[in-house]
């Protein structure tokens, strides 16, 4: 079963759980805020071809994760800081990103969709001539991401899905990394 199919089944199951929860009584109090949150997300990353050698047809696939902290005292706006590390085949390449930025999130019952813009530093590395340059390289990166969290308990929830676009200004045309993943969330002082 592919990763995307797993994510789809999980999302459908959660929707079913949410629909069954609607039979419960309608709450009398709604809180127009969400507490600060720490999340750990697995990311599967696909690099573009722009910096690969012309003769190679192989895509760069990385597996890794990101840990982030979302500060939501200005809810629905949030300030986000994240640390991401991914490593993969075929040339043992790695990508390390440290970024911070702003986001917007809104809670609807148990669901909290979000969208973010971050900027920071990225460092790439490869054992071989993966990026047409030898060794590691650092630079300014911008990260756009969007996804949705589903709350399971006052503290714990899951990140049902997250899609991320990371841009590194390497090479003549820059380098774009597309990532998708899912993870767990933990709310502080719910």
């Amino acid at each position, binding site marked *: 079963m592919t990763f995307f199919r797993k994510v789809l089944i999980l999302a459908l199951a959660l929707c079913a759980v949410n629909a069954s929860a609607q*039979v*419960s*009584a309608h709450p*009398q*109090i709604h*809180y*127009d805020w969400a507490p600060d949150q720490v999340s750990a997300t697995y990311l599967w990353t696909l690099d573009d071809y722009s910096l690969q050698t012309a003769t190679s047809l192989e895509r760069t696939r990385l597996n890794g994760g990101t840990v982030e902290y979302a500060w939501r005292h200005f809810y629905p706006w949030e300030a986000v800081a994240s640390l991401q590390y991914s490593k993969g085949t075929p040339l043992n390449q790695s990508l390390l990103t440290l970024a911070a930025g702003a986001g917007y999130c809104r809670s609807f019952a148990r669901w909290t969709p979000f969208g973010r813009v971050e900027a920071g530093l990225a460092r790439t590395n490869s054992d071989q001539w993966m990026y047409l340059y030898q060794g590691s390289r650092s630079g300014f990166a911008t990260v756009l991401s969007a996804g949705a969290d589903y709350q399971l308990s*006052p503290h714990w929830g899951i990140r049902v899905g997250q899609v991320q676009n990371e841009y590194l200004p390497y090479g003549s045309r820059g380098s774009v990394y597309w990532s998708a993943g899912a993870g767990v969330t933990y709310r502080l002082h719910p």
Partner: protein
Amino acid sequence: MCFRRIFSYCAVLVFGLGAYVPAALAQSNTSPTGPDSLSPTQTQQLIERMAQNERAIIRQVSERAPLVETYLQVYGANGDGLVDDRYYVSRVREGKGLLNDIFVEPSDVVAGRTSKKASFREHLGHFTQLTIEHRPLTYDAVGFMELLGPDIHGFSPGRYRFQYLGTEYLGDVRTAVFNVEPKHSGLFNGRIWVESDGNLVRFTGRFTPGSSESRDHPRYVHFDSWRTNVGSGLWLPSSIYVEQKLLSGEIHGQVRLWGYGLIENQRKAGDHVSVTIDNAVDRTDSGADVDPLTALREWSRMGSANALEKLQHAGLLSPAGGFDTVLDQIATNIIIPNNLSFDAPVHCRVLLTTPIEALTVGSTIVLSKGLIESLPNEESIASVIAFELAHLSTDGNKRDARYSFADATNFSDSSMYRKMPLAHSEEQNVRAAELAVSYLRKSMYTDKLTSVGLYYRQMEAVAGRLKCLYLPSVGDSLVSPEGRPWLLSKMLDIAPHLSPGDTSQVAALPLGSNLLVDAWTGQVSLNTAPRPAPEFSYEKRPFEVMPVYYRLRASHVDLIERENHTPALAGADAAGGSSR
């Protein structure tokens, strides 16, 4: 030896009985083993009948479309007292489940959500109050409507476990008492009282929190819901007391329902469009048209009649009769010594809503239910009537001509608060306050003006915090925008200072005092139950929401007969249960 043995047996018997009797008496109210207790089969049958009745009740509520008023008061943490309030009026709308037509959400106006400037201030608040205690929360009117039943989605043994506790009398009604536990989260958890025909008459508890609810930020409130027998064994929701502790304080509130007979009245009003008039007498003997001044007065009078009819049609105005006669007498006590004369006799009516307000429509003075409830004595009621009489004597009913054309009141009930403002301007209120005090000084209430001043002192003390309570829906506010009662400004010299710790000083009453409202007709009557004096200062609670407790009684009125004998949109006192 024998005597000693007999004596010891007697002693054991006496002490044994002494220990047993108080325990037995203590259990007599709710006893599962007494002669009144139900067998397991009877219990099962009662629960099944109750489950069936509940489905019918929710359908009845949905079809009969009563008005639902929710008023919440927010207490601050650490004994700060009242800090805020919220108010909603809506009407149940027929549909899938319980839906509502919101009449007005004054809370939104108070919170400044309609004003860009206030909205900016609100946002600024987010930046300056960055503690968890100050996180913003909203109350959901639909959520409070769910308290009309323990489970409007299906209160049945399939979803709950029932534990029989015994029988108990609530007033004259014998009930079986059950503890109820839900089989999964988000459902009712508490206690229910079921009368012998399987009707739920009271239930108290809370919806169980789901797994996403945090202990510090509850989404459900505790509630105590009471029903009223409106006739033919039909027990309909009438009053609910709610209370919930929050991280930022505590909320107390009441949800009230009335006007179950409104739909029937409106249908009858529609049916009576075509009327055959028998024995009509031709009074056009003068043969002349009226002069222009009389025409003007008739024109304004027609507007007044239209406005009153609209208020009553929407279920906001109590039918004429009942308590109105008490108010009429007080008005007469002011009119006669002041030699006031009006085009038409002055009458008083009661607006069935809680916000403290008064208004004049033509020669009718209307006082809100919440206002009358809080007034501690006759002279305080007289002061409000004098205030409106002053408006009437200076401005007459010229404003009512706005509603003389039939289409002027041809809008939905739910938009009435926006489309039918009947309030006076600030200048008019200042002038009326001055005149009202002079009326009072010339009346039989002149020696009691200190207690009137005391009432307005109390009003001033809370008006700044209970903005929704003092925000009028359609009429005149009794306080200025600065929070000072209009009348207090003219009585500062005689108004004594408040002594919150003095239990003998009752400046204002809690909400829910004085009046009873018939849940079917909306008819208001005087609550003649004895009112005990407060023993402790915390029992005074001026302008505050109090718990609900009824002495229930079964109504023997036939509901079909009641529907037939309730005059369409006219005053009629009908029997049946009443609620505060």
